Structures are given as structure tokens and as C-alpha cells.
């Protein structure tokens, strides 16, 4: 890889151990993906929940944070994905002091490096949305696919270590989605049924992700005649990334790089229709009318303030079933607003619980399921029902309204 003088100095250790580690790490990754050089990034978003970081990862973060301030401090604005523990509410969920302590140590180490603990996977709605052409090093697949597709920014999926390396140096290897040639469409889909609610958009994303099926495929989607909201595209992207490891999609006439099919090189591709059977097929894998439900979850991605109001409006003045729990996950920024506006109280007065700065699936989902006897899980998130089967749950999918009615009835309505 071609390195600048500054990058060579970092690699040689002239700017301290943290930057030397970071450059070495990025050179290894860059070599694997044939990066010609590094590209400066404007901001970084890191996934570092304690369940995945583990004792070894926390010790690694602490080791970097033990260096002098000018060596350990990140070079560009750097923010974080959801935590694994809501430190104001973990014992009642069955989370242990050991889990909370890992989280506290992670927060302390990251804070010493100048990382802003935003604890959110909806930073593109709440912190600083990137702009078209912005090079980034973002973690969380839902964040990356949204920023690439809806905003026209440029990021690969960055795992925690690579995001940290980018934060410490202010650059990332130039490969994958930083390059024009990897952003043209490779698969073409035509939609005939217009999605309506958030879950419809998630199901469409899941179907296309499953069909596209690889990090290196870029779907272009035709036939959408409605203008989706940011929340709808959030669910579309999160599900597509979850089912297909897909980091970028184009919606013709909607997303910024695809004013036309031609603009993303889609005209030569064979079109695949998305049929009603495709959509019904994905949904029917997560069915279950009349079944008892242990926990209803709104998360993955964290809820926007608008979604918080929608949940509160549907549930206010009612009471959830005594054998059913309702968990809502949102970012600290949205939580503060939702609390100020009375939305948290409306949800919790009905027996629900709003968690701050976590997301259900990365907060020791297996352990809290076992501790609370939660097996039958219902959600409006296509992403979460896809991934929680691997954690011992029997997940079912329904629209937000049906989720609320099911929480009240104690069974899937």
C-alpha cells in the first residue's frame, strides 16, 4: 500500500503505540482487499458492546487508553453503537454485575480516548448525518447500509477494531465501497406491491438481502412509487443487511446515486420480480397467531422519536398482559427527548420498559431470555426476528399495532 509520510510515521511508532497498532491493523486489512492507499474519514462509529468485546477486548481497549493523552486520543469525531447494559436498569433484566462492570470499563477506556459515548445505531437520524461522498468508517451494518444507500456516503462494514484504528488515525484503507466501481448495481429487482408500514419495508429488505446474499452484491430496486420515510428506509436497510450482509442498495428515483437505472449501471442486468409469494414466504417463517407471547420487543434499529410517539399513542391508557413483557430500546438522545415529552411515562405506565442506549439483541439476549423465561418473542423488526433464532428464541413478526395488541392480550393476535 502507498502510505503518506504521516502514515509511515504512524506505522513506525513515531506517534505512539496506539497509532502504530492502528496503522499496522489497517495495512493487514487493506492488503487482503487490495487497497492502493488510505482515505481520510470525516467521522467514525464503533461497535463495542461487552458481549462481543469480551474480557480480552476490554483489556485491549484499556491498554490503548493507558498511553499519554496525545497518543491515545482519536483524530476525528468518533461515536459508539448501543451498549450491552442499560446501567440504570440491568438487575431486573437478569444481567449480572460482571456484565455491567465490563460495560463500565469499556466506557471508561473509550472516554479516555476521546470517544463520544452516543450508544446509538440511529446516529444518521440523531447525531450528524453524513453527506453524499463523505468517506466514513462506520460500524453496525444497519448504520452502514443506510449511510451508503440513503445518504450516498461511503463506508465499509467496520468491525470494532477497524473502526477504532480509523478513529485513532483519521483514515481507513481505500477498498470496497470507497471505490466507484464497487457501488454500481450487480443485481436488479422490481417491486410490484408497495410497502406500507415499517414491517412491510423490513420484509422487502429481508427478501432482497436473502436473494442478493453477499457483501459484494449491490441490489438496485425499481418499482417503488411511494416516497418512504427515514424510519421506513431504516427498516428496509437493517433487514437487507441482516439477511444478506448487504452494505449498499439503490432505489431508482429515490436514493441519491440512482436518479435513473442507467446511473447505477442497471440496464444490462436481468430483472428479477419480487413477488407476493416472496414477501409472504419470508413473513410465514415468523408466524404464530394464537400463540402465547413472552416478550414484545421494539428495537433493532433503536426507535426514533417518531416511533416512540407511535408506540406511546397505541398503548396509552391500556395495560399489557401480566405474563408478557414489553421492551423498547432507544438511544440516549431520543430517550431524553421522549422522557421530556412524556412518552417514556406513557409507555411505562402501561407496564412496558424503555431502555436507554442498548439494543435488545446485543445486550446478552440469550442470558436475559433464560433469566426471564422469555422464549416466544414478537417484534415488528424483520432484522431482530432473523437473528434471535440463533439465541434460543422462537421469534415472530407482526406490525407495530399487532405487537401492541398482542402485548395486551398475552398472545399473538
Amino acid at each position, binding site marked *: 500500500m502507498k502510505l503518506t509520510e504521516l502514515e509511515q510515521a504512524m506505522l513506525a511508532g513515531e506517534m505512539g503505540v496506539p497509532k502504530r497498532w492502528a496503522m499496522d491493523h489497517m495495512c493487514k486489512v487493506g*492488503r487482503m482487499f487490495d487497497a492502493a492507499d488510505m482515505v481520510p474519514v470525516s467521522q467514525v462509529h464503533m461497535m463495542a458492546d461487552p458481549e462481543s468485546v469480551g474480557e480480552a477486548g476490554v483489556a485491549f481497549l484499556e491498554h490503548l487508553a493507558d498511553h499519554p493523552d496525545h497518543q491515545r486520543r482519536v483524530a476525528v469525531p468518533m461515536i459508539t453503537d448501543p451498549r450491552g447494559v442499560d446501567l440504570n436498569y440491568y438487575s431486573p433484566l437478569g444481567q449480572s454485575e460482571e456484565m455491567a462492570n465490563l460495560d463500565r470499563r469499556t466506557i471508561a477506556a473509550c472516554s479516555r480516548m476521546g470517544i463520544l459515548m452516543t450508544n446509538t445505531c440511529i446516529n444518521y437520524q440523531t447525531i450528524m448525518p453524513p453527506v453524499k461522498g463523505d468517506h466514513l468508517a462506520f460500524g453496525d451494518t444497519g448504520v452502514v447500509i443506510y449511510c451508503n444507500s440513503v445518504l450516498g456516503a461511503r463506508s465499509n462494514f*467496520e468491525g470494532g477494531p477497524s473502526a477504532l484504528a480509523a478513529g485513532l488515525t483519521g483514515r481507513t484503507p481505500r477498498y470496497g465501497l470507497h471505490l466507484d466501481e464497487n457501488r454500481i448495481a450487480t443485481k436488479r429487482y422490481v417491486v410490484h406491491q408497495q410497502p406500507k408500514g415499517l414491517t412491510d419495508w423490513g420484509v422487502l429488505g429481508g427478501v432482497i438481502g436473502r436473494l442478493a446474499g453477499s457483501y459484494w452484491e449491490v441490489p438496485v430496486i425499481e418499482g417503488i412509487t411511494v416516497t418512504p420515510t427515514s424510519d421506513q428506509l431504516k427498516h428496509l436497510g437493517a433487514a437487507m443487511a441482516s439477511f444478506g450482509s448487504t452494505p449498499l442498495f439503490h432505489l431508482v428515483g429515490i436514493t441519491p446515486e440512482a436518479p435513473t437505472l442507467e446511473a447505477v449501471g442497471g440496464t444490462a442486468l436481468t430483472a428479477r420480480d419480487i413477488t407476493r409469494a416472496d414477501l409472504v414466504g419470508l413473513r410465514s417463517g415468523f408466524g404464530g397467531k394464537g400463540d402465547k407471547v413472552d416478550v414484545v420487543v421494539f428495537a433493532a434499529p433503536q426507535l426514533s422519536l417518531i416511533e416512540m410517539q407511535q408506540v406511546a399513542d397505541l398503548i396509552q391508557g391500556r395495560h399489557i398482559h401480566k405474563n408478557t413483557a414489553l421492551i423498547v430500546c432507544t438511544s440516549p438522545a431520543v430517550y431524553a427527548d421522549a422522557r421530556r415529552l412524556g412518552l417514556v411515562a406513557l409507555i411505562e405506565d402501561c407496564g412496558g420498559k424503555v431502555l436507554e442506549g442498548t439494543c435488545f439483541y446485543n445486550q446478552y439476549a440469550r442470558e436475559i431470555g433464560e433469566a426471564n423465561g422469555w422464549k416466544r418473542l414478537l417484534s415488528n423488526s424483520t432484522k431482530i426476528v432473523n437473528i434471535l433464532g440463533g439465541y434460543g428464541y422462537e421469534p415472530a413478526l407482526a406490525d407495530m399495532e399487532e405487537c401492541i395488541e398482542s402485548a395486551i392480550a398475552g398472545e399473538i393476535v
Partner: protein
Amino acid sequence: MTTRLKCHPGIGSPVTGQALVADDNFSARYDLDRINGVFSRPQHILVGQSYVDKILVLNTAKGGVASAWMLHEMKSRGVAPKAILFNTANTILAQGAALADMTMCDRFVDGDITRLIQTGDQLHVDPDNGVVTLIDPD
């Protein structure tokens, strides 16, 4: 007779070990019981099998960004594969291998690696040169 399989230059140090092969994918978060070192997702072809000190040979990497930290955590406890070979890696697994110093290669020129290698084969993986050698048992 030894067979040499050429691939893209990868990550990590040269290693020798026994292959565990499946025409399936890999997510450290959702496919594994990381404490006991076995595949645990019921739908995975290798469910119930130990991956500890094996050279895993799989199709592609799936799942979210968590796997990047997890390879490092698994290796720190000595409950990790020796190497992973993919037809196609994704960015997250490559980043995880770089942090963990775990050997990883992908993009084999001779075709589907899950068909070219069989479970039980002895392999030598040379990531710098992008070569995997099947060692003759004789």
C-alpha cells in the same frame, strides 16, 4: 502427491492443521457456542462439532460486525479455530482476523474450496503467499 491451492494473499501466520469443511457460512455471534467451542445453531451443517484448533473451510461470512471482536476474544481463551478459509470473506471477518492474528484466506482460483478440501484433510496455510497445501498422509 501434494495438492497446492492458490488463493488471494490473506492475513496471519502460516499454520498446519486438520480441516473441518462445510458448504455453509460463518457468524461468530450466531453460529457458535463460544464457551465450549462447538457450532450451536441448529440449522448449521456443523452443529455439535468442535471447531477448536481446526482449519475451518466454509463458503462465506455472515452476520453483523460483532464477529470482529469475537475472534480475538475466542483466541485469548484458546477456544478458537486455527485458521478459516472462505470462498469469499467479508470485511468484518478479515478485520477480526487481523486483530486476533488468526490465519484467514479466501478467493481460491481452482473453484469452490468447500469441495476441493474434505473434512480430515491435513492442510498447510501460507497466507502471505496465498497458498494452501494438502499434505499427503503418507
